[in-house]
């Protein structure tokens, strides 16, 4: 008789984030839980982020801002994991999977200007290596001598979550013992705003208030979120502090419309179900949901339907909040930043609220954690279990099941 294949468990040993709330994973969750909003003038910029504070002149000028953000967030995660200068494993067995929805948009635009104004011969040789969407993965791998598989992942607003799922499978399958993974995005250019505006995707009021009746679009932000994932046995053997576990991953595709979510929430609900099943869990064991919650009329309605389909009666019980209410929508970084925020939720036992949620939409009748932060309550005495959702233009759906470390 054959049993189910033994899958390696995968734990989180380090997290890092640079967001409109500042640099730091702890800062992100603490400030969000305190009710702080990092959005100003309708955008979630990392206003205090100056690459000179973190990188050499050479590094900074060779990286587009999205990759600069990635390198700094990865540095925080790797430091927390206690990787002292080099990975604690054979470098050929340490991977690096870093997502971006767009890549180095500002670099691309700047070099296009150079070509138009000064001619093709004056275009920088750094153009391609800076705007390629895998530039962040390359920069982090090079900086930390990670010599296993490394690549970028591109699936718009689901990119960051796909990167974590890919990293999870890489370790589970035995192709790597550890992976630095996450997402980074910085597309805060006039051109990007114009493009999203012409789709009518952005909030004309510049307010991110997911699930509220008055929601009118998302607020674009920039930033990066990174996680160090390790094979659980190896991490324990080296005495690493375990922050949590990537317990499950589910991903589906709407195959419905380029930008609009499938309105029944069916394919998205399957992603959630797959993640829960992948974690060996049931809906009744879920303690918290970090929603995709973009503040667009369509997403928040479709996500609510997906949650109800996937969770049944438990959908009404489980607290649901959206990080985007505090920092806006970080596009290809969102899934990773929100996974980081969810890990902090599991560590601290504090559920941050959906900020700005005041006027309920009669169609959306779940518990979106209005008002203030509240304690994370685990019913069964087991480590807490959370779901983090990411849904994207292109119809890409990802759900991650994240479990707290045993206490």
């Amino acid at each position, binding site marked *: 008789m054959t049993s189910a294949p033994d899958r390696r468990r995968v734990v989180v040993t380090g997290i890092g984030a640079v967001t409109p709330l500042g640099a730091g994973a702890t800062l992100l969750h603490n400030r969000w839980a305190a009710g702080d909003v990092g959005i100003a003038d309708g955008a979630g910029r990392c206003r205090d982020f100056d690459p000179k504070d973190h990188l050499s002149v050479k590094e900074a000028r060779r990286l587009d801002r999205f990759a600069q953000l990635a390198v700094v967030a990865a540095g925080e995660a790797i430091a927390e994991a206690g990787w002292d200068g080099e990975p604690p494993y054979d470098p050929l067995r340490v991977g690096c999977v870093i997502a971006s929805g767009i890549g180095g948009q500002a670099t691309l635009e700047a070099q296009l200007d150079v070509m138009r104004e*000064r001619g093709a011969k004056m275009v920088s040789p750094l153009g391609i290596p800076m705007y390629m969407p895998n530039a962040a993965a390359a920069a982090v791998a090079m900086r930390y001598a990670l010599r296993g598989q490394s690549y970028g992942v591109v699936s718009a607003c689901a990119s960051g979550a796909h990167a974590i799922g890919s990293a999870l499978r890489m370790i589970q399958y035995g192709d790597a013992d550890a992976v630095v993974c996450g997402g980074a995005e910085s597309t805060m250019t006039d051109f990007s705003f114009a493009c999203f505006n012409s789709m009518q995707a952005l909030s004309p009021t510049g307010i991110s208030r997911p699930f509220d009746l008055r929601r009118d679009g998302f607020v674009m932000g920039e930033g990066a979120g990174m996680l160090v994932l390790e094979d659980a046995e190896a991490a324990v053997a080296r005495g690493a502090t375990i922050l949590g576990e990537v317990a499950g991953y589910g991903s589906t595709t709407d195959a419905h419309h380029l930008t609009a979510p499938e309105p029944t929430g069916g394919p998205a609900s399957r992603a959630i179900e797959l993640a829960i099943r992948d974690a060996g869990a049931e809906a009744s064991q879920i303690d918290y949901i970090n929603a995709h919650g973009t503040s667009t009329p369509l997403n928040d309605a479709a996500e609510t339907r997906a949650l109800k389909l996937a969770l049944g009666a438990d959908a009404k019980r489980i607290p649901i909040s959206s990080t985007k209410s505090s920092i806006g929508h970080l596009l290809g970084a969102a899934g990773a930043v929100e996974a980081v925020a969810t890990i902090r939720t599991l560590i601290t036992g504090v559920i941050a609220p959906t900020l700005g949620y005041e006027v309920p939409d009669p169609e959306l009748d779940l518990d979106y954690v209005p008002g203030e932060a509240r304690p994370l309550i685990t019913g069964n005495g087991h480590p807490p279990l959370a779901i983090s959702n990411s849904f994207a233009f292109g119809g890409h759906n990802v759900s991650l099941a994240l479990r707290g470390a045993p206490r």
Partner: protein
Amino acid sequence: MSVTSEQVETRVVETLASFGPDASQIRRTATFEELDIDSLDLVELAQVVEDEYGVVLKGEDMKELKTVGDAIDLIVERADS
């Protein structure tokens, strides 16, 4: 177009310094390897030189260059010819 070695040196040092190395380290005898100046930096330097002095430096020209002084001498020579 005639330029002096000093003019070229000033421009080359300024350009290389903008790529990362400390300006005080950028002497004629310093090698590009020591300064951590790689092939991408040299292409950028060639663009500045072409823009400024109309001197076209190709990949094969750049490959032979080992020191800052080599680059300055080549640029002056080409600008004079």
